[in-house]
């Protein structure tokens, strides 16, 4: 009997607007205060620092304008880091998300041990990056667990150089990232799947649609909001990737697994070029913004007020 209206946003109808403002402001105050002091102000500061050449220790005097930005795009190491971010982004969208979707659909079936599987699939997300790195470093090290397995199976001494070979380290990294985050995306899709009312499925079955047809024409479109959320978070996450990379490979060897964030950290904390590092962080922020806006424009062109998705930005 309780209907959940989805396309309208019910408003509080108060007698006059003036009475609302204290409430609105009062309710918003804690969040706004926290947000301004610890998020907005640092962002503004970062933008401020980004136009200086500064080692963080001396006074802020060496104004260089956009030099830091041109320097970044002129640095092959930064460009390769940017490239790595987009490789990871592409791989995530092409491999990780379909995989998560597949698992979500699978868990939606009446398989035995569903609940346990669901719990275990999400578990890696809960582990910290440091722990993840320790675990996988041990497994990937020369003559480590993986090498031992392959040696055992192929009966000759195998050394995979998973993290030592510049050509494959990025993909080893992607594997670890997938391991850590696929459960999270799977959960989002699973939740979306459970929103789909049974009646639609039953109606399709009555109309003679095959399982695949039902999936393609009913499930998938109705799953779109969940997929959109997942895609969005995945894209932003790929652009900002830091923790796992830094602890697992440090961006190496020879910058083969560098991301923009590890590059920024290196230049800021190790080389003491704070202004430059802040410029890189502004670039990361700008790219994320660009992606977010472009995505919203493309993905939400049919929606009203963005109310069908969780991303109302």
């Amino acid at each position, binding site marked *: 009997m309780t209907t959940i209206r989805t396309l309208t946003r019910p408003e509080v109808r108060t007698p006059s607007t003036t009475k609302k403002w204290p409430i609105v402001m009062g309710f918003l105050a804690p969040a706004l205060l926290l947000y301004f002091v610890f998020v907005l102000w640092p962002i503004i500061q970062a933008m401020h620092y980004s136009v200086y050449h500064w*080692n963080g*220790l*001396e006074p802020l005097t060496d104004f260089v304008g956009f030099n830091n930005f041109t320097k970044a795009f002129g640095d092959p190491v930064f460009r390769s880091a940017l490239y790595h971010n987009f490789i990871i982004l592409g791989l995530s969208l092409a491999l990780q998300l379909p995989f998560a979707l597949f698992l979500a659909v699978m868990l939606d079936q009446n398989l035995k041990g569903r609940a346990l599987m669901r719990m275990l699939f999400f578990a890696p997300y809960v582990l910290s990056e440091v722990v993840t790195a320790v675990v996988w470093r041990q497994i990937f090290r020369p003559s480590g667990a993986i090498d031992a397995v392959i040696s055992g199976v192929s009966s000759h001494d195998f*050394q995979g150089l998973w993290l*030592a*070979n510049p050509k494959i380290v990025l993909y080893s990294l992607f594997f670890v990232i997938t391991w850590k985050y696929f459960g999270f995306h799977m959960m989002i899709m699973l939740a979306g799947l459970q929103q789909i009312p049974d009646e639609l499925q039953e109606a399709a079955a009555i109309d003679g649609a095959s399982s695949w047809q039902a999936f393609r024409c009913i499930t998938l479109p109705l799953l779109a909001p969940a997929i959109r959320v997942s895609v969005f978070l995945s894209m932003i996450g790929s652009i900002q990737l830091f923790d796992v990379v830094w602890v697992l490979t440090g961006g190496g*060897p020879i910058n083969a697994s560098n991301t923009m964030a590890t590059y920024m950290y290196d230049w800021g904390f190790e*080389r003491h070029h704070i202004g430059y590092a802040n410029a890189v962080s502004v670039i990361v922020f700008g790219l994320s913004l660009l992606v977010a806006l472009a995505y919203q424009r493309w993905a939400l062109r049919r929606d009203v007020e963005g109310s069908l998705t969780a991303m109302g930005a």
Partner: protein
Amino acid sequence: MHKYTRATWFVVLLVVLSLVACACGDDTVTTTAGAEATTTTAAVTTTEAPTTTEPQPVTIEWWHIEVSDPGLSLWQDVADEYMAAHPWVTINITVQENEAFKTALATNMQAGDVPDLFQSWGGGALREQVDAGLVQDITDLAAPWVDQISPGALTMMMIDGKLYGAPWDLGLVGIWYNKTLFADAGVEAPIATWEDLLADVQTFQDAGITPISLAEGDKWPGMFWYAELALRIGGADVMEAAAVNQNFDDPAFLTAGEELAALVALDPFQAGFLATPWDTPDGSAAVLANGNAAMLLMGQWAPGTMRSNGPDLAASGELGWFSFPAYEGGAGASTDAFGGGNGFAVGNDAPPETVDFLGYISSVDVATRIGETGARLPVVIGSEDSVTDPDLAAVLAGMSQATYFQLYLDQAYPPAVGAAVNDAVALLFANAGTPQDVVDAVNAAWAGE
């Protein structure tokens, strides 16, 4: 309604937690000696030397990076002894591992918060700190004890003639080798020239022995090879000029890169060396300790690290040391030393007791104990006998006879330039860069300072 009660409890809990959190901001734990880092109750600090018979209580914030024994216990004992002798002084020790220390120090310094006494490697980073006014000129305050330290070593913590701290460990880099493997391959130690070394690499390979163990995963070990070659080829003058003029334009640097590339072309390193770390059970130290390679270019801490990660070659007499080979036709002398060490710098706000404590660390007694750990080489005159290991004694002798001392390049130069050297040399090792690229990269980094 029960909902209110639950919510109320939650709010109460939150308030209580916040109060606890605020109180925890000044948490205190009593001092215990032993394997854990400790802090003691912080008393109010003053910066005046005690002028009355009742000295004002003073706190010294000490940050070091010896996270494990023997260094961890040694520094704790030293602090305890000093505190016992000077009851009004409290020393708060913060121990962090290397990378965490650098990050924490950087952020603290950038916020203007400098520890009173902290780990330092001298060189460009120290110069940055001096320029920013974050470290104290202790030339005068240290006068009572500064002569205890060997003058050559002291220069490590000096910038433009003024002293900003004190070293407690200094050594030079050389080639550590496995005597058994050398005998097996029929190679004579010491290897006299660079040309001999290249030939010997071939000999080792023919005998089925990996010639060189290299931890290029950490990048600085590769830089060691480059720096030694540059020093032998160009000599002291070229190295000094490079630091002053801030470029690698001298042809010696290009030649060094070419010679290094020639070595890399022989493929003399262990498998996966591009990502091999230094100090882990599967690191480059362990490779040598386990008898899986013949040679290792490393500093004075090598035996200690090898001991922790594998069999004790030194104890079984299989470990040897010789200084880096000469370069025929090069301007360098074989008594030119490339190396570095550890020191403590004094923060700009540190109380005078800090300098006095540093004097205690620089005493013959403490220096002797440092030497006895077998992992470091003390710099205090009169403590040389504490170094009993023959190889380390050879290193110490090399230090005392050094005609010129070049600090590690990634310490001597500003951090960004040092990182550029490390990175460019790593590319050389990966066959992804040319010798000219190294010169260009370093010049560009210096220009960007």
